[in-house]
Every structure is written in C-alpha cells, then in structure tokens.
C-alpha cells in the first residue's frame, strides 16, 4: 500500500480535476475548497469490521424505533426513559411531522455514524448523523483513482470493493419507493456537497433535480421534464435540510423547497429520504440516552459505547462537569459541523469561568465529554510519514434491511495534536479499507 504514497500528488490533482470539492461559507462568502486526500488508507480487518457492523446495525435500528415512537405514541417518554424536555426542546423535533407513517416505517435511510478508536483500541461513537449525512462519495471516487494509479496494490491486498455504494443506495431508494421514479434533489451548486449530489445521481441512476423541477399536485409529487411532461416521483432523496424543504409548512421564504412536499409525504404518496424530523434523534443531548434506548427498545446491551458523556442537566453530572472543566470537551447541543465545541484545556481561566456560568444558567444546552485520546493514523507528509488524529464516519443504509457499507470516510486533522477533523475546519480524508479476510 505504501506504493500509493508515490501517487499522492497525482491522485489529489485528479480529485481536483473531477471536481471533488466541498464549499464553505465564511463571512457570507461562498468558497470552494479541495478536500485534501491522504493515500494511506485506514485498514479494518474482517473481524474488526464484523464487530463494528453488528454494533452499528443495533444502534441504527434503535434510532429508527425511537423516531417511530417519538412521532407517534411517545411511549419512551411515558416510561420515563428520557426526560421529555430533551425531545420537546430539541431544535430537531418537528411537530408538523407527527403521526406520519413513512414507507416501510423507515426514517433514517442513510445514517452517518461518527466513531473514534481510542489508544486502547476500543471504539466509541462520537455522534450520530441522521439528517442528510454527506461524505460517502469521497472514498468511492478516491478508491477508483487509487485503483487506477496503483492496480497491483489491490491485487496483493484483499480489500473489499467499496464501489457498490451506488447500488446499495439505489436498493434503499427502491425499497421505500411507493410508485414512480427515484429523484435526488439538490438545492443547487452553491451547496457544500453539490459534487456529491451529482455523483450519487450518476451512481444510482436516479433523476437529478433542482427544486424548480418538482411540484406537488393532488398530494402527489411530480418531476417535470423539459418537454413539459410530468413523471410521478416515488422516492425523493433530498439533500436539502428540513427547514427548507417545504415553504408551506416550514420556513415560508425558502426558495429551495417544494411547496406541499410534506402533504404528499404525509398522504403516503412519496418516500422522503431521509425522513424530515430526524434531527431529534441525532441531537447531542439525545445522544447521551442512546445506550439506554438500545436496552429499552431491543432489550440488548449496547455493542458500541458512547464516549464518556455528562449531562449538566443532572445535578451530579453538573457538579462533576464544573469541577473538571479543564479536562473535558463541552459541546453546545444546538450546533453542528464542529462549531460550538470547546476544549476546557484551551480556555483561559476567565473563559472557563464564563463557560461555567453559561452551564449553570442553561444546563440543558450543553453536554460534556471526556476527551477520548484517539489513536493516531499514519499520514504521508512531505516525502515521509507522520501521524494524525482521525475519526471514521460509517455509513449505514436502511431500506427493507440494514446494511453497513464496507468502507467509510476517514477524516484526519491537518495539524499535529489537533482533534478537529471536520472538513469545514480544514481536515483531510482517507480511504477506509475493509479486508475480506
């Protein structure tokens, strides 16, 4: 595999030529950035992957049961397994989505579960992403380029092919389709993941649509052809956030949405992938309760652990957090993408005091975690190799059954010692190899 290092520049050049980029907004300006690729893959052995697979299926299954429950009977609240404030005050909880039965009763068709491996080699779940997790296209296309650059590497290593993601995704879209075509809906080229939207449309054979190509009539979603003809849509894989998808229900001034989409979905005439309202299940506050949810819904012990987390909402946890602020990482539950994450050790005494006050004043807004000292991975750097902290976003697909993609997006920190791997914060990525033996 070290032969791949020689091709680092070439592969990065090809990635840029293929348009593998993401966009970020900074000071209200849109910038496109390349996503730096490191050619040394993360390698998961067959056994290691089998363990992760089992744990991920259990977790994703549970989160879907939770979403079905929370937008329906809310039995978990009645049984007191989690305090109802965490649901009702979550920004991701959308009452307009109540009492909808999604096709096949699936909410989280595509889950991106962020994991890290500690120095002790144990895996921890850091975050669940159940809204519109992005990133699967990067390892797919990188694998493709690597195979071309160094074909023999893949002959001598038993690496499971990961280029089937398009097929797996298509199967999910078809599994929940209620009659009609599959559509991938993008907000447009100024979206940070536009490259991925178009690439996935190509890989799945789904129709690639902009908001103005779709309309609802008589509670049915249609795609309008250039010719003026209409085609009924059975599944829409929308890459537009909940608050923008339907201006008749959510933000009224959204130009990115499709008016009455939620009505068509409620009527059972179209599958919306992922379901609107999933934000309540990947909320940082709800995360704390996922292990308990697994016990509650499945009667099983969680296979994958959360990073050790404290909820200042509970008095004993709050006391602990305030006492140990300097060694914890504190997260604002309403922020995403690496924003609102503060390492106590980086703060001055004054800043720490301010944070402590904010926690005392509004404990519900924060969670605190022990800093998992995660295992560093080897990266190629200037003709030599060094190590960086890295995480793993595993993709779990949920249609008629649950499948864990035999790959994943490994993101690494650009700076030595840094824990911040988010692409919006300058991180790079690696391919993830799952060995077939």
């Amino acid at each position, binding site marked *: 595999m070290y032969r791949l290092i020689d091709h680092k520049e070439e592969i990065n050049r090809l990635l840029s030529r293929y348009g593998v980029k993401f966009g970020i907004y900074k000071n209200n300006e849109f910038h496109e950035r390349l996503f730096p690729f490191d050619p040394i893959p993360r390698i998961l052995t067959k056994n290691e992957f089998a363990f992760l697979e089992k744990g991920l299926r259990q977790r994703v299954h549970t989160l879907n049961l939770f979403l079905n429950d929370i937008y329906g009977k*809310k039995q978990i*609240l009645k049984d007191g397994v989690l305090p*109802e*404030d965490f*649901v*009702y*005050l979550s920004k991701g909880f959308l*009452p*307009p*989505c*109540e*009492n*909808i039965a999604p096709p096949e009763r699936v909410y989280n068709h595509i889950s991106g579960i962020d994991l890290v491996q500690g120095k002790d080699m144990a895996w921890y779940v850091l975050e669940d992403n159940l809204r519109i997790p992005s990133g699967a296209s990067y390892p797919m296309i990188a694998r493709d380029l690597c195979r071309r650059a160094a074909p023999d590497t893949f002959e001598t290593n038993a690496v499971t092919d990961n280029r089937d993601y398009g097929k797996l995704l298509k199967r999910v879209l078809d599994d929940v389709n209620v009659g009609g075509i599959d559509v991938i809906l993008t907000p447009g080229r100024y979206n940070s993941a536009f490259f991925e939207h178009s690439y996935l449309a190509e890989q799945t054979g789904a129709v690639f649509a902009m908001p103005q190509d779709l*309309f*609802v*009539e*008589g*509670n049915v979603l249609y795609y309008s052809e250039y010719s003026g003809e209409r085609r009924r849509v059975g599944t829409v894989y929308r890459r537009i956030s909940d608050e923008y998808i339907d*201006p*008749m*229900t959510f933000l*009224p001034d959204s130009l990115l949405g499709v*008016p*009455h989409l939620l*009505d068509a979905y*409620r*009527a059972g005439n179209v599958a919306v992938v992922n379901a609107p309202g999933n934000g309540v299940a990947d909320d940082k506050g709800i995360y704390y309760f996922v292990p308990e949810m697994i016990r509650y819904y499945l009667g099983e012990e969680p296979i994958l652990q959360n990073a050790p987390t404290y909820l200042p909402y509970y008095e004993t946890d709050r006391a602990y957090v305030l006492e140990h602020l300097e060694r914890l990482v504190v997260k604002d539950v309403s922020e995403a993408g690496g924003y609102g994450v503060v390492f106590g050790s980086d703060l001055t005494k004054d800043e720490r005091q301010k944070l402590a006050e904010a926690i005392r004043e509004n404990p519900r807004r924060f969670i605190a975690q022990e800093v998992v000292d995660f295992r560093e991975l080897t990266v190629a750097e200037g003709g030599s190799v060094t190590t960086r902290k890295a995480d793993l976003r595993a993709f779990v697909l949920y249609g008629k059954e649950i499948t864990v993609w035999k790959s994943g997006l490994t993101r690494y920190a650009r700076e030595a010692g840094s824990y911040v791997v988010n692409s919006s914060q300058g991180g790079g990525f690696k391919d993830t190899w799952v060995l077939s033996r």
Partner: protein
Amino acid sequence: MQRVEFSYSMKIEFSAPVVRHCFSLRCLPFNNEWQRIRELFIDVSPHNVLTETADGFGNRILTDRITEPHTLFSVYVNGIAEIDLTAAEAEPLNGIYKYPSQHTACGPLLTALAEAQRAACANRSPTEKAKLLMEALRARFSYQSGVTRVETTAEQALELGCGVCQDYAHILIALCRALGVPARYVAGIQEGTGETHAWVEIYDNGYWVGIDPTNHKMVDEHYLKLSHGRDFADCGINRGLFIGGCTQKQTVEASVRVL
C-alpha cells in the same frame, strides 16, 4: 346544544397576474363529537386539483397549486354546525403544548408577569390559573389594531402594551405554559363579529377548555373552531405562495349566526 350557520369568505386581488400559486387553507371547521358539521359548501376559485388533507396537528387543510395566471383568488365556505361543548371527550395530552414555541417564548417581561402570579396560582385548577393569568394580562394590555403584525411575538406584543386577538392569545399561552398549564392557539370565528378570531385552549384534567382573553370570557357554543396549533405559525387560516403580482389586497369576512 347550539345550531349555528357559519361562513368564511376570503378574496385576494392581485395588481398583476400570478402563476404557480400554492395555498394551504385551514378554513374547514373541525368535525368532531362536540362540533358536528351538518352541511358544508366549499367554493375555491380558481382551482386546479383541490385536495383536502390533514396536518400534524389534526387540522383539516385544503391545498392546491394553480398554474393558470389569475388576478383574483377567492374562497367561500359556508355550512351548518351543531356545537355541544358537553359532548367533548377526554383526550391524552401531547407534550408539544407544554413548551415554548416560536411566538410564545418568554422573555424578561413575560417571565416577570408569570412569576408575579405564581403564588396566587398555587393549588388552583388549570382553568382557574388561566383565568387569573387572563386578568393579569388584561391589566397590562389593551386592544388596538394596526400596532402589531402577524410575526409579532408574545414578548414583543407585551412590550408594546397593545395588539389584537392573536397577541392576546400568544401572551396568555406563554403565561400558562410558564406556570405549567398546557395551552394551545385556536383560530376560528366568534358569533356577531364579522371577522376571524383567535383564542386559547388550556388542558384541564383530560379536556381542552376554551378561553377568550380578548373578550374576557370562557368560550361557549357561539364560537366555531377552525384550527389549532402551538401558536399562530402552526395554524394560520390562509398560507400561500405565488410567482408574480405586484401588490395584493386581501379581504376577509367571517360569521357565525345562531339558528
């Protein structure tokens, strides 16, 4: 039991033609055990594929998307209802009505007003609490149209000190929720006013009880209920989107007449 005739008519005149006009109308009255709709006539013009559907709060909605250019949009609903508040059945509480919503989050003014009533409200039933809070609200707030807008929040309205039925409802909802009384916003029509109205329902021991802070009274069988939600944003009677037009002029007439 009270038998009433009701009507709702709404017209929008556009100064230039509009197209791709999407709308959601929550102007069909609830049809349930205590508000029986005996006759219903609906005319929406123009229309394309007029569809009756429901939303997440249990409201009935009329939706459509008009593609043809038009400069006039009109809605007329008329019918007969039998209202019998004693026929209401107990229902479980949905927790969404216990927590602050977009228009009803408490700022310092609402919090202070609620806290000032906390002692007086202790050990009282939810309905009695709501009545006390209505008194506190009315001591601080007066009716005046044209001061607030549909986006005005409860806190902003309280700061202004005057507003319309929507503001009265939002403030009372905020106060009730602050003191642990679940409350929701109701849009409907009151007898003898000629326009649409907004009031509050509070949850008391399994039942939703109507209270009208604008008119300082409990809701009786001279009120027709059209929609409900956490606040105005969930259940506005008319929500629409269109392309084109320049200016628009909307007129609404609504009535409930005792038979």
